[in-house]
């Protein structure tokens, strides 16, 4: 009798004990994510839906009472707009130059500063510092460094070829802005690669060296594969940010929100779009343009994700394959 009673009572007590725990944990989870979740709906979901609707109207920021439904006309117009085509081309070129330059340079710096060299901490700090400088100051620093008449760069070049007066910011706008952008982003990229390099188990490289592999082979067959997840992460981030670049050229050429003075070579897609929105109050058309670029960016991100299995090394997969 006694044993039977216990046997019945046991699951009941356990069930009573567990059910509230699940509920309690669920309540706790939603309490902790509530601030984010509520704001996510209010500040992301609702504006995104409104943004889609706006892109199908002729909204100019004021005419809410008389706003007209345009359907897909704004989108169709984008495909015949030569400024859109031109600025899109510039953005693609900008991204195609910026992304690899930034990744290769910041990875190289991380590799060098991962060695046991004297003064390593000093160089790490020095290389990181530019990424702390606000973009407004970065633009100023470079504007006067590259200035045709008073800039230091032409001044130094004049020592070798007197009278050098290259108009860097107008004749070489794309490489100049790339240099500025990479200069500002190098430290941030380097520090993430450094973190990754420090995560590589030393035994692995040492074992390979003992087995007679030279440094180059260790680099090629151990360091690089183990770093591919991080390179992949940086590549995605770089693509997303570089295709959306607008602030740097706008500040360098000093046009404010009107973006009038930006050199044609760096007249990027988002700059053209903001010109429509803030200079001409074309919120409807402007939002449509932003959506088109977002679709391109998200599509490109997906494509890069699809390529991942051909070149990104995942430890768990390799372990599974070996077993």
């Amino acid at each position: 009798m006694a044993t039977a009673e216990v046997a019945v009572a046991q699951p009941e007590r356990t069930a009573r004990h567990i059910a509230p725990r699940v509920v309690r944990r669920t309540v706790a989870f939603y309490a902790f994510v509530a601030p984010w979740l509520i704001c996510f709906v209010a500040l992301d979901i609702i504006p995104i839906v409104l943004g889609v609707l706006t892109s199908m109207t002729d909204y100019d920021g004021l005419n809410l009472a008389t706003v007209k439904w345009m359907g897909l006309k704004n989108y169709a117009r984008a495909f015949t707009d030569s400024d859109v085509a031109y600025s899109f081309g510039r953005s693609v070129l900008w991204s195609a130059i910026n992304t690899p330059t930034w990744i290769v340079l910041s990875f190289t710096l991380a590799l060098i500063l991962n060695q046991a060299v004297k003064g390593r901490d000093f160089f790490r700090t020095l290389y990181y510092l530019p990424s702390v400088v606000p973009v407004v100051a970065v633009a100023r620093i470079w504007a006067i460094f590259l200035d045709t008449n008073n800039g230091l760069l032409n001044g130094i070049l004049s020592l070798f070829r007197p009278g050098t007066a290259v108009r860097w910011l107008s004749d070489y706008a794309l490489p100049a802005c790339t240099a500025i952008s990479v200069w500002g982003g190098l430290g941030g990229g380097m520090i993430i690669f450094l973190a990754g390099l420090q995560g590589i188990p030393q035994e692995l490289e040492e074992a390979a060296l003992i087995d007679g592999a030279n440094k180059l082979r260790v680099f090629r067959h151990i360091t690089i594969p183990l770093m591919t997840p991080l390179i992949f992460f940086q590549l995605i981030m770089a693509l997303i940010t570089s295709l959306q670049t607008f602030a740097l050229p706008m500040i360098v050429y000093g046009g404010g929100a009107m973006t009038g003075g930006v050199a044609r070579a760096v007249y990027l897609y988002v700059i053209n779009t903001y010109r429509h929105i803030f200079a001409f109050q074309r919120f409807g058309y402007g939002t449509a343009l932003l959506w088109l670029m977002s679709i391109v960016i998200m599509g490109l991100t997906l494509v890069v994700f699809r390529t991942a299995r051909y070149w990104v090394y995942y430890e768990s997969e390799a372990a599974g394959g070996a077993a």
Partner: protein
Amino acid sequence: MTVRYIRMHPTRALSSFLLYALLIVVAFCIGLPVFWFLISSIKTESEYIAYPIKFLPKVVQWKNYVDAVTLIDYWGYASHSLYLALMYSTLCLITSSAAGFAFARFKVRGSNTLFSIILAMMIVPGMVTLIPQFIVYSRLHLTNTYWPWFLWGVAGAPFHIFLFRQFFTTIPAQLEEAAEVDGCTPFRVFWQIFLPNSKPVLATSFIFNFSSTWSDWFGPLIYLDDKRTTLAVKINHGYQNAHGNPLMMPTLAAATIYALPLIILFFIGQKYIIQGVVTSGIKG
């Protein structure tokens, strides 16, 4: 006498020389523009526009720095920048760490879906929400106020939620289970066990958010009018003479003072930042 000279192998000596040469060349490329900027900020206008260039000023012009803080209400705009940066990064820290804790520690119905949303938002281009949000705020008459920064802060940031979640998953589960057995509420586990053990990530997240808000130029430009705006906007085109022409010298000095707090903040938080990035393991 058994002094043994450890001689470097010639090829090793050469490669170490090349390494240092490279490090110094890179240091020059990185430092030269800044150096030129600082030198220029203590020149007179005529020295600054001299052609061929004058390397050093005859007399150091501290006056440029005095002009920088007196020609405009410098400290007023600086206080706006400080206010927004402090408010945003504090709120964002609270929301992001709380959400990160939830995602790291509770596997409940819906938690996986919500975490996929966080990951997705990390790769959704920011411009998707920037303009629609601006339209909503301006229709609610919240432009020209600091409310948008308050709300952005309360919303947290997907990347920082991810950062906290990554870090919190490394804290051993036993710690929390023991606390739970002792009758600790999840809030107390979070507040008294997790947060005190997360200083590197807290510092990293705070410094990144503080810096990005202090540096942000486009947000204040489109949201705030000339009276309420921040240093970032004001420095860019705030210094003008009576004819509306830009005054170069105070602008350079002002930009230097403007960048300084972030550099100081970086030096204070340096060891935390590196630790924070390493431990949170941003590995895609």
